[in-house]
């Protein structure tokens, strides 16, 4: 079953087109890496796919419903850009942040045992159980990433959408972070990931979508590295550093 089904998606800021005629399908259990040069419309496309923006034309269905009227909020775990580098002064603790994952289904009233268990399990799953009482704003970038993943897990999300999650995260944490994403994907969570490091994406993702306003390529990583899609999208010579582990 398709988690996301986008057809001829077009979006402009004023008269400047940002996304044009993009059609793609993300199947359940996929790990899609979204790549493209700066300003290529990656973030906008991701926001369109999960219903954060209204399309100018075309259509997006998310879990079988039009994306912008989706009421399946707790099925989507969104990790926004810059969370690793943002210097939050808000005194929210890790546990408080992860509890937010339960809020959409529990806006008022007491938390049940199931809610508390989901939060504890999520904290343990991403390996930050011992950080529960720490302030999110005082964590390292890598730890903060895990808080947002834990929030998505506490929500029991079926789809993880991540916008350049490892900007400002050190290399070692980054490796661990992608390993975690891999494991979660193996457990059945669909992942859509924007990543500027093409080598990383081609190593970890099961499929690649290459975007520069229009969709230049959508397929498996092996085919992607063999085609000229990247050079076309970036408008010049690009070489790929393929990471092997």
């Amino acid at each position, binding site marked *: 079953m398709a988690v996301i089904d986008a057809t001829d998606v077009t979006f402009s800021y004023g008269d400047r087109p940002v996304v044009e005629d993009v059609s793609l399908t993300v199947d359940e259990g996929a790990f899609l890496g979204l790549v493209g040069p700066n300003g290529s419309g990656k973030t906008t496309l991701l926001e369109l796919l999960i219903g954060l923006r209204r399309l100018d034309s075309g259509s997006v269905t998310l879990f079988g419903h039009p994306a912008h009227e989706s*009421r399946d909020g707790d099925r989507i775990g969104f990790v926004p850009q810059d969370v690793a580098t943002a210097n939050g002064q808000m005194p929210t603790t890790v546990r408080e942040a992860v509890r937010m994952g339960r809020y959409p289904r529990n806006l008022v009233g007491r938390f049940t045992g199931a809610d508390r268990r989901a939060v504890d399990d999520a904290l343990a799953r991403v390996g930050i159980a011992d950080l529960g009482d720490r302030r999110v704003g005082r964590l390292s970038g890598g730890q903060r990433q895990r808080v*947002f993943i834990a929030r998505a897990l506490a929500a029991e999300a079926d789809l993880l959408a991540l916008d350049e999650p490892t900007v400002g995260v050190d290399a070692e944490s980054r490796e661990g972070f992608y390993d975690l994403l891999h494991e979660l994907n193996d457990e059945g969570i669909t992942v859509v990931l924007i990543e500027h490091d093409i080598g990383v994406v081609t190593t970890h993702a099961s499929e690649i979508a290459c975007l520069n306003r229009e969709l230049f390529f959508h397929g498996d990583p092996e085919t992607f590295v063999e085609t000229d899609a990247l050079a076309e999208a970036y408008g010049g010579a690009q070489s790929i550093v393929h990471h092997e582990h």
Partner: protein
Amino acid sequence: MTFALTATIATPSLVLVGAADILDRLVELVLDDVWGTVLDVLAAVTGIEMLGFPFMQRAYLAAVCIAVIGPLVGSFLVHREMAMIGDTLAHSAFAGVAAGLFVNAVFAVTVPPLLTALLVAALAALVVQTLVDYAGAYRDTSLAIVLTGSFAIGSVLVTATDGGIAVGINAYLFGSLATVSRANAAILGLLSVVVTLGVTVAYRPLVYVTFDEVGARAAGLDVTRYNQLLAVLTAVVVVGAMQIMGVILVAAMLVIPVAAATGVRGFKRSVAAAVGAGLVATVAGVTLSYVYDVAAGGTIVLVAIAVYAGVKLVAGAAE
């Protein structure tokens, strides 16, 4: 048939009289029987005479209300970097007060200025929120336009009559303990209940939106609606606190206690700590203002800043 007709005509007014009666008794119960008695006893036990004066009892009640609702709403504003919205809405409330006094002077009716202030400030809150949504990064500019525009309307209205209302407006500009009449104390009490209920019911979505607005939208929360709710609650706080704090200083209670409590670990605990800081500031401020016969609003703000500075100094020394 005739009987039935009389009954239907009589019922609404009877209900109205009944409701007003209940409200009166409720005010009497809270203000005199509970709060008044507690402070009377406190005055007798401690020998502090002013705790027994009815107008000081009203001032302390107002102080407690302001200390609770200011930081309660302010905690969300500060962490969304919207601290200036309180100041903007205070100035719209001023325009509302001026409009009320103007209507009273020109049309010879009695509309409570607090009511017009509440209406105008709530309306301005929705306008500001819409402007912020559209203006994006330039929300400072939107706030500045509404702030100065409201004050301009107020000043024009104040001077449009023969000068009679200029006297009354001073009390709202700078605030005073004397403006806390029984009716005003009752209104502030009611507004405090509304604000506390509003924040309690919408606590979770407000926290989510404050922590991560985009994430909250992705999670299916109606972010615009909660932003509007927060803006209107801010307007209610501002109007309630305006009588003591004054238009110019009222925003302080939304911001300074919250700033003093940012070092606390945990958002919920920081809100509680901010209310604590607010209580220290308002109760000490009202007391000092009475003892030295100086403006209550200014004194409260100075104590609040002293609390903030003290907390930061201690935290700095501890690190």
